[in-house]
Structures are given as C-alpha cells and as structure tokens.
C-alpha cells in the first residue's frame, strides 16, 4: 500500500455519508484492496465510526479484493458449463456468485475485462431495438431518439399511456409502472429517481445489453422520468462487474450534458461492490446511503419513503428502456406487441444449452421453445430442465418448454416469469445439482438480517447437497415447514422467493427427493 498516495487521496474525498461506497471504490481502485488502515483512515476523514465502515467494507464481495483479480463465475449456467474446472485450473482466481455474463458461460473476468471478450447476440425488437445499437447521441437521435425528452408529454398523459400499456417492472417483481409513477407523483416535496442497474439474478443479462448497446435510450428514459416527476437528482446504481456498461453510461451522460439536455438535472452513477442483495430496492437505498445493503422493512415503500427519506421512483433498466417507445407510439401500441393474450414486449435473456445464447426482444406470451428456435439457433442438447425467469422463478421440466412465459402460463407449474432469464439445462446436468447450486447462491447472497433467509437457504443448500449422495438430513415434513417460514416471514424477496425453485423441483422430480419422504416415515414410526 502506498501510504502517501492513500493519505493524499483520502483527504480529497467528499465527506457525505452517501459517498461512502463511492469513496471505498475510489480507494480500492487508486490504492488497493481496503484494509483496516484504509478503512479507518476513511472513517476518520468522513467522521463515521470505524466500526460502521468495517461493517460496510465486509458486506460487499469486492472491496477487499484487488481490482485486477481474476474472477470466475460459478452461477448455475456457468457451473453447468464447467466453471468449477475453470476455477481449479486458473491460478489465483476467486469464485464469484454471478458475473452477469451467462451468455459466455463459463464466464471469467480479469479486472474489468471479460475473458475472452464481450459478444452480443441479439435482435432488432420493436420497443427497445437492441439490434443495431447506438454509438453516439447523434446516432441515437437519428433513430428517433430524444423526441419525447424534447417534447415531454404531461405527467397525466405519461401515466395514462403507461397504464394503458400494461408495462410492469421488468426487474422481476412486476409492479405496474404507471401506478408507481402516479404514487411517486402524489407525494409532496423533493423526489428522487433511482435506476436499478444492479442486475444480478443468475441468468439475467438483459439490462447489460441495454446499457452496452443503447445507453442513450436508458439515459433519455431516466431523464424523462426525472422531468415528469420533477426530480432534479437521479442516480444509476450499477453493479461493479459491468465495466463496459459503466463506460458507456458515463459517456452517454456526458453527451447529454454537452448537448444541453440535462440543464437543472444531475444524473450520477453509483457503482456497487459485489452484493446481489443490493438489487433489492430498499437494500439499494441503504447501500446508496452508505450502509450495509440490508433491506428495509416495508411498508413504507420507496415511493413514499425512499432515498434519504424522500419519495423515490426506483425503476429497472429494461423497464425504463420501454418507456420512450410507449410514450412515442402509445400504450395501446405497446400492449398489442404481446401474444397469447399477454401485453407488450420484453427482453429475454437466453442462456444455457442453446446455440446462440444472448438477449432477444420478443412478445410477452412467447414460449421457451419459440425463443430457442427463433433466436437461439435451437437446442444443443436434450433438455433436462428449464429455469423460466431467473434463479428464484422456478425450476421446470422439459414439458414447460411450451408454456407461455407469463404469470398465467407458468401458474400451473408453480413458477413465474421473474426477470425473463430463460436458462436451458441439458439432461447431463442434474436438476438436483441445479437446485443445490441455486440455494448456494441464495445462501451466500443473503444479507443475513432475517433468520429464515440466513439459515433457511444455507440449510436447504446443505440438504440438497447431501441428497446428491442419497442421504436425507431432514425430513420432507420439516423441509416443507421451513420453506413456508422462509416464504412467509422473510423480510425481502430473496428469502420469500427462494422456496419456489425448491417446491418446483420437488414436484417435478420426486425421485430425487424420495429419501426425504423416507426420513419422514422413519420419524413418524
């Protein structure tokens, strides 16, 4: 560690508590991994208790890791494609839960660089139009961009169009966007807009595609939201692993500023530090306020009490990316993009055992098989299992390949469309292994605050790992009880949703879980 450099750098850093994560990121980049000495020096400079900075530093995965570290992703898709072997054969590599590059599985990063290189496999959809991408703001404008920002519709009209479109949050929770805008607009006083760009659900790569290919679209949509809701400050909370998105967004914001499109507005990037849970909206606010990213109790909701206690619109990247098209062409136009009775269009992250993994825009109501055949170049293997919408959405048998990927279409399977991260697993990858790896992810990413999430996910990871060797360490009855407690009593979506893939797997592959039932009978006799 270069003491002089550290001292000089820290002395120049801002002292507001909201800058803590940013400052830690600067120190890590400029000086090195955060040690106790660096943490204490920063704490003293910012007038924060040393223990609280220690808590924050230790919460995130990367603050104590060098920026040039080699990271190997062991998320389920990467695990399926040999991540463990890659990890074992790569000297000094560290294991990370998800890098958000499942289309390159097994994904590896060396510092900010993706190894071997980022590729985009996508199409030209009607709403987000990822296909050609925009190199500059001029390109973007030439494609019809900026029209809405330049002639902003009234808030009432915007809300009406959003409601008519049926657009819901594409981060996974599916809250109606128009209703959210209206709720925030009804709160008095200073408001904020926060873009959730902390995409982290294994299998989900769509927001990265938007930010890497159409950063100007996302920035315009954010500025539209800010102007419509009279919010002068906006923040984009971006996961640390997305270096290219960071560069593209920073460039786009600068172009908007230079073009005079941001007068009176400030839009800043906040870079995360490796914590899936920071993507939970209230955990994100905690993180932005310089604390551990632990979810808040709801209610109150961020639309009432959000960033710094003020009403805050928190919107996922992809959700925003649909808004300019909706406001330009009308909510009804967008709604009509759907198929089989569903509304609208969506970006599907398609990964796993398909020839062309990538991110494709297709109608809501599409099936997995249609996505794979139309865009993914077909299956590479016999399908063993499919995850319809991110790790927490469910784990389904091949029969679900023909189910429309909507709430209604997946209901009979006990699953949901989640973040639309469709992951196809070959028969060679056991669903039990997939389940165990999924629970390992949730266990490691649990913020630890609430009992059912902290202990339940760890326990079930262990139960399923043991089941792989045929041993039951818990009865089926207890597993069901624990799942119910996790679903009903966890504070946030992580613990509330992680029981879903477990229940799916137990329903669709009962043979793997037979030992739990036998343990049940043994316990009763």
């Amino acid at each position: 560690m270069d003491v002089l450099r550290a001292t000089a750098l820290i002395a120049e850093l801002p002292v507001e508590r909201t800058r803590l994560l940013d400052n830690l990121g600067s120190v890590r980049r400029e000086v090195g991994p955060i040690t106790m000495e660096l943490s204490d020096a920063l704490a003293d400079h910012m007038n924060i208790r040393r223990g609280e900075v220690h808590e924050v530093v230790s919460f995130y995965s990367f603050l104590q890791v060098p920026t040039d570290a080699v990271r190997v992703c062991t998320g389920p898709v990467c695990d399926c494609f040999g991540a463990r072997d890659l990890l074992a054969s790569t000297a000094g590599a560290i294991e990370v839960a998800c890098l958000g590059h499942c289309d390159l599985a097994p994904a590896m990063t060396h510092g900010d660089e993706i190894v071997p290189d980022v590729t985009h496999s996508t199409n030209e959809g009607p709403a987000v139009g990822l296909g050609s991408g925009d190199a500059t703001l001029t390109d973007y404008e030439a494609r019809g961009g900026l029209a809405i920002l330049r002639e902003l519709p009234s808030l009432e009209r915007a809300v009406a169009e959003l409601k008519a479109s049926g657009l819901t949050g594409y981060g996974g929770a599916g809250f109606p966007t128009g209703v959210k805008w209206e709720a925030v607009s009804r709160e008095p006083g200073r408001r904020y807009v926060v873009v959730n760009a902390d995409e982290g659900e294994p299998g989900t790569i769509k927001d990265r595609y938007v930010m890497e290919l159409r950063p100007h679209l996302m920035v315009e949509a954010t500025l539209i939201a800010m102007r419509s809701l009279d919010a002068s400050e906006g923040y984009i909370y971006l996961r640390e692993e997305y270096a290219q998105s960071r560069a593209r967004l920073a460039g786009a914001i600068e172009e908007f500023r230079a073009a005079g499109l941001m007068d009176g507005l400030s839009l800043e990037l906040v870079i995360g530090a490796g914590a899936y849970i920071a993507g939970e909206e209230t955990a994100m606010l905690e993180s932005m306020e310089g604390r551990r990213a632990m979810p808040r109790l709801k209610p109150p909701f961020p639309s009432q009490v959000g960033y710094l206690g003020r009403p805050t619109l928190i919107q996922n990247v992809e959700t925003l990316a649909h808004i300019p098209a909706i406001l330009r062409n009308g909510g009804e136009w967008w709604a009509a993009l759907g198929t089989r009775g569903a509304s609208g269009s969506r970006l599907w992250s398609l990964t796993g055992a398909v020839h062309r993994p990538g991110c494709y825009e297709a109608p809501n109501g599409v099936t997995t098989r249609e996505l794979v055949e139309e865009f993914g170049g077909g299956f590479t293997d016999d399908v063993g299992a499919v995850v319809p919408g991110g790790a927490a959405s469910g784990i389904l048998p091949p029969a679900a390949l023909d189910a429309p990927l909507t709430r209604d279409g997946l209901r009979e399977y006990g699953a949901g469309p989640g973040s639309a991260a469709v992951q196809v697993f070959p028969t060679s990858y056991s669903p039990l292994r997939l389940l165990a790896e999924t629970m390992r992810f949730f266990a490691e990413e649990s913020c630890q605050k609430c009992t059912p999430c902290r202990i339940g996910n760890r326990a079930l990871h262990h139960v399923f790992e043991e089941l792989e060797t045929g041993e039951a360490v818990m009865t089926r009855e207890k597993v069901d009880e624990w799942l119910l407690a996790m679903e009903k009593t966890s504070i946030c979506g992580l613990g509330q949703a992680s029981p879903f893939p477990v229940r799916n797997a137990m329903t669709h592959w009962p043979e793997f879980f037979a030992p739990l039932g036998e343990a049940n009978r043994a316990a009763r006799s």
Partner: protein
Amino acid sequence: MVAFTLDGRSASAPEGELLVHAAARHGTFIPTLCHDDKLDPYGGCRMCVVDVEGAPRPMPACATRVAEGMVVSTNGPITEFQRTLTEMLLSEHLNESPGGRPNELRDLANELGAEAPFILPDAKREEYDDRNQLMGYDPDACILCARCVRYTQEVMQCSALSLEGRGGHARIVPTWELSWLDTECELCGGCLSVCPTGAIYEKFEEGTKQPERQLEQVRTTCTFCGVGCQIDLNLDPQTKHIVKVTSKDEYLPNEGNLCVKGRFAFNFVHHPDRLTQPLVRGDDGELHPTTWEHAIETAAAGLKKVIAEHGPQSVGFLSSARLTNEENYLIQKLARTGVGTNSVHSCEST
C-alpha cells in the same frame, strides 16, 4: 388512542404504539429476540410475526405500529412460525451457555418444544479470545440479532462491535477483530446486557460458573458516583458473595445501562484490604478498631489543633466523586461555615 382488534377482542392503544407493546398491555405476550426497547425497531429475527388483516404476509410486531381498525391475530397457525424459526436458530447454536447468562432462545425452545433437525455444517464460527479481563464472547452462542452492535451504535454511540460479512459468513466481532481494549469500547458491558443468548458474558471466574438465574438478587444503588444508578447485586446463594452486577430496563435513572465501574468493579466489597470499621492510630503507632464516635472525636480534635496553631486556611477539604450533589454541598458548607476555609475541592472537577 386508536381502536384495534387483538385476537378477536376489542383493544385500544395510543396511535403509533408498537404492536408488541400494545399487545403486552392487553396481556398478550409476543416472543421477541432481536427487539430491545432501547433500540430502533429492527425486525430481524422474525420471532414476533403476527397476522395483520389485509397485509400480504405476516408482520413483525416489534416493528409494526398500531393503526385505527387494525385486525391482528397472534395465535393460531402463525405460532407455528415461532417454532420453525426457533429450530432454525438452534441449528447453528452450538453453545447454549458460555458464561452462565440467561438464554432466551433456550427458553423459547423449551416452551415451544423446538429442536434443531440437524446442525448446519458451517455452524462453527471462528473462536474469539480477548485479552480484556471483564467480557468474554463465544461466537457459537450468537444468533446474529445484532442487539449488541446496535446498542453500541445507538445507545453508547461508540465503535466497539461490528456486524461483519453477509450470508453464512456473517458474524459479530469487535471492530476489525481487534481486542475490545483497542476499539472505542469503554467496557460498559451494555452489549452483554442486551444479548438474548448470553453469547457475551462476564468473564471473571465466579460470575461465569454459576447460572445467573440461580443467584440471589439484591437491589441497591450503585455507590460509584452521584447519578444513583439502580443495580442488582447477584449473590452466590451459598457464600452470599457478590458474583456479578446486573440492572434492569425498568430501573431509573439508568434504564438498565451501567458503566464499567458499576457493572464490573464490585470486587472491593469482599476484598480483605477493605476498611469495614473505623480505625484510630494508637500510641503504639498501629491502627486499632474503634467506635465512630471516638474516631470522629479524634479527627475533630486533630483538625481543631491544626486550626488553633496555623489558622483555618491551613485546612483543606477534598471530597469524592462518589458523593451526591447534596453531600458535596454539605462538605463545602462544613468547610466554609464550620471551619472557615475556602479550600474545597472535589475529585470530580479534575
């Protein structure tokens, strides 16, 4: 006041009162582990979840405020969650009594008939040994409710403990795993007093060995300063010796808080060198036990002799920080009007 329904009965509470308190006032006990009235609502352990009509999922009574018309049920199927959550906590609770302090998780487990189905393979946490002589900490008894950490941050406003890491690796340690002596810790023992499982405990031998609940408690006023903190001396039932000092939240003025002296510095009581009766030095040059009357007469005679020989300004009064304001007032009164000197000092002023 607002009206609400508690388990089918009409109830009322001041608007905004925490549900856990409102229920308690109506005779309904809702178990909690992470809740502490001294701290901001946290809602982490989830032990206190209750059903609230219209809410999509159970709500934590420790962090939910009563509102007009709220319909709350605390009994019925919801109590199954208490047993399940207790089982979960037990599955990584490797040491139930490192230092003799009460364990509320064990109490709940007994009451609910909860047992760990198995012990988590990663339940064992790294041991922590601290060179301070007052407080011990066994991470294997910790349930991560963070009451101790929040106490240091919200009540003591110091940096002594940290909630470190996340997921299964999360643990509570003195900041950066330093010794408590090297953090801002004042060794007040407040973290210990709020720990529901006794993971932080009095380290000294006698207090550690005996279960706290088997000790006899005698309520008294701390003698260390004029604040008048209320304390319970905990006596070994056989020897009648004080083995630890505790306090209770309902005690005023300290609300259960103590300082390092009040909580830990009681060994003078039974110390062989302690003066327990007045002594006067005899002609043989040795100290001899005597009566208070004789001792005071002897002291007064000595003072009067000095005053007669050298004048009242030759006498000074030094009072102790252990006295009350009123006692300090009397000392200066004695000095000024009784003796006629203005040389009065209290060790508190330095």
